[in-house]
């Protein structure tokens, strides 16, 4: 079949959903939706609609972005814009069926916003709302819209036309377009993608490979996972174009084994792509032969490092190669030229070919063009996945898109770049998001993790947390990282336990700088960043821990005491029932309870459960 025919067929499938006259109900069942209970909601919709003999199309889609509002359900009735409902439960599902699908009450109190032409009274337009207005969903445009297990959806709304266009261009032309777009590697390194593609293209070798780094090891990062779960074909199309552009024979997607749903979606997508002739021999009649294989990781953060990753694919031990070493584009898997890029980097390419390099660079900054995807998490009101133009400030992200600090607390710091990144304080909130500005501020862009911290976060504990992670994940081949991260961690643990010494701060800086200069790979080289940045901007907290044996944020267990506010406590006993060590005893009704310090393990359960704010933590 020609692409024109394939697209026509796909459009029929898609149009049936949009114009059938039946309500179209989409439910976000990516991992975030599932963990919020989306599968039960899906089941309820199917069952209840069936029971009532209501004809409707119920489709599972990926994550739209606002994970704080999961499970998300979109209901589109003919002639009306789709309404996105938030935090839908099975009970709410029944209400929506009875009141909106069968009735005409859109239940605006449950709605997040509308999408599509037209408006509904009482419900804001989703993309005009404060959390969405600053965003520009480009690479994530299909997530939450298409059924990721149905390639026809992707094709109908423009998918694979980038590949068709690419096959009519020469490899050099494709690489030029990617260069002109200014696209920089979205895995965190920010290396100009076009230049990397070119350096692989020019090598006169028949056996070349394309590898997608979908290891996503940063704790708290889920951008790549969501893209693969919600729109796997965006990645595939990008990788096929890349294969054609550099002259590769095969592509590999190195995906961490801890992403079973993403792996499943990829397997389905690959099969469907092969069936349509987008993968395999003589792709779309171009004579280009190429297929893609999934390779699962085995639980090592260090295998997200490009040389360790390529070794892992070869079945060897995933340990980074020691410099000097040739670039992966020259010597990669099986010692052959290998183009290695992050998931998002590949996924941008079909857009760049379809809409042009100028369109891509039309947003963003001069040196960091385009949009960036972040997993905005932590103490913000609106946690989730966001896609914003480069150049937007941290303040805009946190206070507009993120909706500010949750529970009215005070902002303290924002951490970007995962365990390789740094923590930036309030004074740097107007830093624009771009590779160079973040580097200058003492952090890094990273692959998109962004954790917001408030007054209840202890910055020393944050440094300790990241070092704990890095120390466990160190491959162990070089002394600075293997022994150095352990020593830094030990010192930080002692500081958190009130055993810190005055000379520790300077020593941490010295040790950190030596580990940075001496380590073999990026893991070791950046391991000290969380420590160095928190010492730089939050030194007073370190000093308080060391000199005063005090944790200002009330986090470090050895340094805090829980006590009962005898004025506020009315003896309701909620805390007594919840205390895991039975450290609280009842006195009498209306009288404050008594907390036994010796039994208290400072777990915080009583503070969380108390409705009168009568638990003091100092």
């Amino acid at each position, binding site marked *: 079949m020609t692409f024109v025919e394939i697209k026509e067929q796909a459009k029929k499938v898609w149009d049936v959903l949009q114009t059938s006259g039946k309500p179209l109900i989409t439910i976000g069942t990516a991992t975030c939706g599932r963990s919020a209970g989306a599968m039960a909601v899906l089941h309820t919709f199917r069952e209840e609609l069936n029971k009532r003999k209501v004809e409707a199309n119920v489709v599972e889609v990926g994550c739209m972005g606002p994970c704080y509002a999961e499970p998300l359900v979109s209901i589109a009735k003919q002639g009306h814009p789709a309404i996105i409902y938030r935090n839908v439960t099975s009970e709410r599902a029944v209400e929506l069926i009875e009141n909106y699908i069968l009735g005409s009450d859109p239940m605006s109190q449950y709605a997040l916003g509308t999408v599509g032409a037209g408006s509904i009274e009482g419900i804001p337009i989703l993309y005009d709302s404060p959390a969405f207005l600053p965003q520009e969903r480009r690479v994530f445009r299909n997530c939450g819209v298409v059924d990721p297990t149905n390639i026809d959806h992707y094709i109908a709304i423009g998918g694979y036309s980038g590949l068709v266009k690419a096959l009519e261009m020469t490899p050099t032309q494709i690489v030029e377009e990617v260069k002109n777009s200014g696209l920089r590697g979205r895995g965190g390194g920010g290396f100009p993608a076009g230049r990397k593609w070119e350096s692989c293209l020019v090598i006169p070798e028949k056996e070349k490979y394309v590898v997608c780094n979908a290891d996503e090891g940063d704790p708290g990062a889920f951008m790549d996972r969501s893209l693969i779960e919600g729109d796997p074909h965006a990645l595939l199309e990008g990788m096929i174009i890349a294969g054609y552009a550099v002259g590769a024979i095969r592509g590999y997607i190195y995906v961490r084994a801890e992403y079973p749903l993403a792996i499943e979606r990829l397997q389905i997508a690959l099969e469907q792509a092969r069936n349509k002739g987008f993968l395999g021999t003589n792709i779309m009649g171009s004579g280009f032969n190429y297929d893609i294989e999934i390779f699962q990781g085995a639980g*090592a953060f*260090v295998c997200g490092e490009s040389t360790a990753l390529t070794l892992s694919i070869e079945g060897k031990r995933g340990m980074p190669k*020691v*410099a*000097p070493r040739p670039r992966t584009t020259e010597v990669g898997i099986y010692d052959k030229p290998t183009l290695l890029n992050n998931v998002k980097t590949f996924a941008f390419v079909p857009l760049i070919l379809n809409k042009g390099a100028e369109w891509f660079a039309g947003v963003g900054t001069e040196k960091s063009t385009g949009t960036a995807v972040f997993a905005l998490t932590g103490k913000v009101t609106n946690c989730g996945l966001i896609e914003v133009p480069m150049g937007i400030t941290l303040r805009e992200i946190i206070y507009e898109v993120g909706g500010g600090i949750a529970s009215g607390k005070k902002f303290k710091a924002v951490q970007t770049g995962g365990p390789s990144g740094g923590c930036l304080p309030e004074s740097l909130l107007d830093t624009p998001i771009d590779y160079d500005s973040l580097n200058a501020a003492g952090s890094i862009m990273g692959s998109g993790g962004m954790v917001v911290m408030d007054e209840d976060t202890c910055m020393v504990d944050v440094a300790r947390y990241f070092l704990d992670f890095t*120390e*466990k*994940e*160190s*491959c*162990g*081949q*070089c*002394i*600075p990282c*293997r*022994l*150095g*991260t*352990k*020593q830094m961690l*030990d010192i930080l643990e002692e500081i958190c336990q009130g055993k810190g010494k005055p*000379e520790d701060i300077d*020593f941490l800086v*010295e*040790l950190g*700088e*030596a*580990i940075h*200069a*001496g*380590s*073999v790979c990026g893991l070791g080289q950046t391991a000290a960043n969380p420590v160095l940045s928190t010492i730089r901007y939050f030194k007073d907290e370190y000093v308080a821990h060391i000199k005063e044996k005090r944790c200002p944020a009330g986090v470090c267990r050895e340094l805090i005491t829980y006590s009962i506010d005898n004025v506020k406590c009315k003896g309701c006993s909620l805390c007594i029932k919840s205390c895991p060590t039975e450290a609280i005893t009842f006195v009498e009704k209306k009288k404050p309870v008594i907390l036994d310090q010796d039994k208290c393990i400072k777990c915080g359960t009583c503070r969380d459960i108390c409705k009168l704010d009568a638990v003091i933590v100092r």
Partner: protein
Amino acid sequence: MVTLTIDGQEIQAKEGATILEAAREKGIEIPTLCYHDSVSSAGACRLCMVELTKNNQTRLAASCLYPVEEGLMVKTDSPKVMNVRKTAMELLLARCPNSEPIQDMARAMGVDTTDLDLEDEDCILCGLCVRVCQEIAGVSTISLASRGTKRKVAPPFEEASEDCIGCGSCAHVCPTGCIKIEDIGDTRTIHNWKVEFKMRQCRECGKYFAPEAQLDYLSETLDLPKENFELCQDCRVKAAQDV
């Protein structure tokens, strides 16, 4: 030949040589722990790091791996290099505070004590034993098992090695002497790999001179008759002289 500058001294080096080899040939000292000229280099201990400058760009690199380049400027003792070297040494001293070779090396570098938390190991995980067993003996009985701070040299699953031939090459290259080989009577024991070997007696002088396993392995892999392996080293030399 390649011309480069090391610590201000212009030297000529063979193409393909590493900076470490070129420096040592000219008597320029660069400390190492995980380097041995009989096996491949790993660049793991980071003690041999030097500062390289070329085309106005400066960076640090492991001299045991970096090949000499025309016009390269090398500094073996710049402040950055010394910081890394001393830190690596101090980290090692903290891991092996009771190892004399490590104490000596540290002292020579000006690292007398450390305030870091102390362990009590004697293996520095340089990997030389692993590499010599793989590359010279060709048996690969041991490897650097486990990841990160749990890394240790061990036979598979830390069980008694099935492939060890008892040649003792590992002990020979170990910089800290932590591989213990005990030859008592007709038995050799290598405690670290939990192996014991029966030694062969010299046909001539009666001395127990090498494990049977090692000699049989050599005769097989070198395709030489077993009779060639019945004399100890001394008696073999004598026999050759008498011919």
